[in-house]
């Protein structure tokens, strides 16, 4: 055990020596294809997920940048890019409403299903979780590989749908029928096929994660010694496992409606364009909403829980203190996971499902806010009395707290049926969930990238550029989303092609549209230092030792950076402590690694 601990403190460069001298000759040389493309190593798959998801995030952001031009300058030709969009989408550079709807639907789909979840779970979960629990790999490496490639195919289908005749899906990321079914183009069919791939991928992934966490924990690593990050991934996997299948069912039913002429979601007597539709009818559009939100509300927690996990690790590490109330955090996150299955219809207060249903779901919604507040409070309290290191990961993690706080608190009026009547489908909703996901989850993911970059590459990202990235992003992102609350409270609807120009009640707040668009493009500009920093640091970043942050968890304390290609650890680690033994009184150093025998 001692040699593992010392390996954790080895100076930079020695890991390269460790690689060559270590007795791993039994592994035959791998070709480029088996090592980097069809790899079964959780670390390579994690990197594949991370890079693919980052590209999708950038692409989805690009779609939004285009939409923001139309919102800021309605019906004006988009400079330069407008001419590249093709006459079918933007004749003369002026965006058509159909194309605007495609951008909106695909922005949501790509950001959620192809960007944030694959990065948070597929990327961070895959790379970090097995290292944290001292496992040699995931329990099912082949499934892990399959999971990535099915995700990849799903992503390709989604992207390709833009180039199909009629373009991509245009009924919003929620794909509410009857609109989604009766739209004449085939974009929705491709969307459904893509979704079925993505759901299958996350199913394979979640089975793998749960089995790995339960079965492959290192010796001595009981459940209450797991880092909070692992708990977050564990609960997230259960949500993915149990909430996604109903959407798969819903997707199959809608696909049948689209392709086989069934009427699952089409009511009798549906009239489209003054003509009765030639269908059997008898279906129920609300059925889709129930099935969709049965997934999509747990999905919200799939987006936020891994982010909370990442932030907890970074806060504990950079305050040099144990997390405040670790057990409470664990109980809260488990409760959150359970509750997330019985709040879904708070998205449907306006469907006329009745006051009894509304009361039930607004009650459960108020209850679910309790564990969220517990988690956030515990993280805030963790800062108290700490001597905080303000490095880039910590800055992003600290920003997560108030940003998620704003996102969460603005959700309460939406969770109460009476106030939701006014706020439903306005920009207020957009502001609310973007505060949770963009400066919330995505900031946490960026924090995670800065934090674990040295683990993956052995080099640290540039701090100067990192801070520039942070400050610019923080200001701009608030510039985009805060005015949405103002617009929403004035009653400006979401999904308006012209941003509300035609509406009298929108006039007093219309000027915010340009402001928000400039902020959005500014945000894009401030990602350039990050992109440059990311690639530059891979080759030219400052080489650091195995444990540059002086962390206690196994991912840092028991492995080299980067970890061994096969099996991660030189000898199977053994755990003797809880995850956050920082500043233990009476010790020479201010951290006590989990694998250090006392």
């Amino acid at each position, binding site marked *: 055990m001692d040699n593992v601990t010392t390996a954790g403190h080895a100076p930079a460069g020695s890991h390269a020596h460790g690689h060559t001298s270590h007795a791993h000759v039994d592994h035959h040389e791998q070709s480029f294809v088996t090592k980097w493309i069809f790899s079964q190593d959780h670390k390579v798959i994690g990197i594949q997920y991370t890079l693919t998801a980052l590209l999708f995030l950038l692409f989805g952001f690009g779609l939004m940048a285009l939409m923001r031009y139309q919102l800021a300058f309605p019906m004006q030709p988009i400079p330069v890019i407008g001419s590249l969009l093709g006459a079918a989408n933007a004749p003369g550079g002026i965006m058509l409403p159909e194309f605007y709807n495609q951008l909106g639907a695909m922005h949501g789909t790509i950001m959620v299903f192809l960007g944030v979840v694959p990065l948070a779970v597929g990327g961070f979960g895959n790379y970090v979780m097995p290292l944290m629990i001292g496992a040699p790999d995931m329990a099912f490496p082949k499934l892990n590989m399959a999971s990535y490639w099915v995700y990849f195919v799903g992503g390709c289908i989604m992207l390709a749908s833009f180039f199909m005749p009629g373009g991509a899906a245009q009924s919003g990321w929620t794909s509410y029928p009857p609109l989604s079914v009766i739209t004449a183009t085939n974009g929705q069919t491709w969307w459904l096929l893509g979704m079925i791939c993505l759901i299958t991928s996350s199913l394979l992934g979640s089975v793998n994660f749960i089995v790995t966490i339960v*079965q492959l924990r290192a010796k001595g690593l009981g459940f209450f010694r797991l880092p909070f990050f692992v708990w977050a991934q564990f609960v997230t996997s259960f949500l993915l496992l149990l909430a996604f299948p*109903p959407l798969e069912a819903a997707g199959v039913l809608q696909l*049948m409606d689209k392709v086989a002429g*069934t*009427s699952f979601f089409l009511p009798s007597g549906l009239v489209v364009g003054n003509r009765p539709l030639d269908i059997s009818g*008898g*279906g129920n559009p609300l059925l889709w909403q*129930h099935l969709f939100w049965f997934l999509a509300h747990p999905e919200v927690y799939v987006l936020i829980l891994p982010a909370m996990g990442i932030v907890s690790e970074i806060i504990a590490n950079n305050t040099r203190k144990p997390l405040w109330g670790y057990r409470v955090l664990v109980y809260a996150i488990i409760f959150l996971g359970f509750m997330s299955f019985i709040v879904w219809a708070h998205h449907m207060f306006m469907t006329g499902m009745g006051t009894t249903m509304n009361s039930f779901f607004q009650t459960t919604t108020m209850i679910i806010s309790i564990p969220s507040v517990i988690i956030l409070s515990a993280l805030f309290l963790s800062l108290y009395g700490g001597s905080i290191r303000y490095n880039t990961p910590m800055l992003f993690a600290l920003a997560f707290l108030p940003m998620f706080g704003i996102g969460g608190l603005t959700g309460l009026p939406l969770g109460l049926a009476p106030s939701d009547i006014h706020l439903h489908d306005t920009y207020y909703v957009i502001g609310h969930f973007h505060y949770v996901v963009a400066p919330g989850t995505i900031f946490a993911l960026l924090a995670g990238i800065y934090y674990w970059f040295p683990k993956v590459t052995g080099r640290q990202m540039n701090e100067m550029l990192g801070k520039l990235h942070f400050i610019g992003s923080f200001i701009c992102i608030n510039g985009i989303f805060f005015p949405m609350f103002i617009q929403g409270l004035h009653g400006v609807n979401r999904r308006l092609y012209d941003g509300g120009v035609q509406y009298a009640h929108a006039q007093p707040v219309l000027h915010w549209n340009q402001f928000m668009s400039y902020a959005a493009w500014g945000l894009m500009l401030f990602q350039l230092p990050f992109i440059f920093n990311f690639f530059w640091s891979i080759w030219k970043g400052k080489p650091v030792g195995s444990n540059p942050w002086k962390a206690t968890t196994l991912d840092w304390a028991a492995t080299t950076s980067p970890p061994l290609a096969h099996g*991660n650890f030189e000898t199977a680690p053994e755990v003797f402590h809880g995850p956050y033994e920082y500043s233990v009184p009476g010790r020479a150093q201010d951290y006590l690694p989990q694998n250090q025998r006392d």
Partner: protein
Amino acid sequence: MEIPYTVDVRPDTGLSNGKFGVWLFLASEVMLFAALFSSYILLRVGSVEWPHGYEELSVPMAFFNTVVLITSSVTMVMAWASLKMNDFGKFRLYLGLTILLSFVFLIVKYFEYSHHLHAGEGPWHNTYYAIYFTITGLHGLHIIGGIVVNAYLWGPGAKMWQTAKERFTNRIEIAGLYWHFVDLVWIFLFPVLYLL
């Protein structure tokens, strides 16, 4: 480094990876079919008129198929038990029978489907036929999936018996768990779609 607990059981959890994994997979399958059954209930409750299954579909054929599937579940267990008793020849026989019975099920299903399609009672006909074709179709896909897995374990996959007896026996057990689940779904489908 080998991945632990692929064959033997982890002492503190009492599970091997594969068995735990397949139970989790089945949990998600339960959610999939639960969503479809819920949709069935919601559509039926909300409909003006809903045909009785026994007036529309052939109960004898479905009954025959139920017997076929239950028998195939029994032969699946016998295949696993034969391996436990170290009798590879009998294993081949019983797993082969399981695969054969799965094909019988599909063939009967084919006759049912083509009868309705010829009569113009496709999924577009009404919501009853829509849900009938969708659920039994998905169930049929699960049967095909089971055939693929079982055929692999009967043919090329059986080579593992020479090198890792216990691991191969575990694989048969896991394939069996899946097969029993597919069988169980049908046992719910039969009364819901044919008898009610």
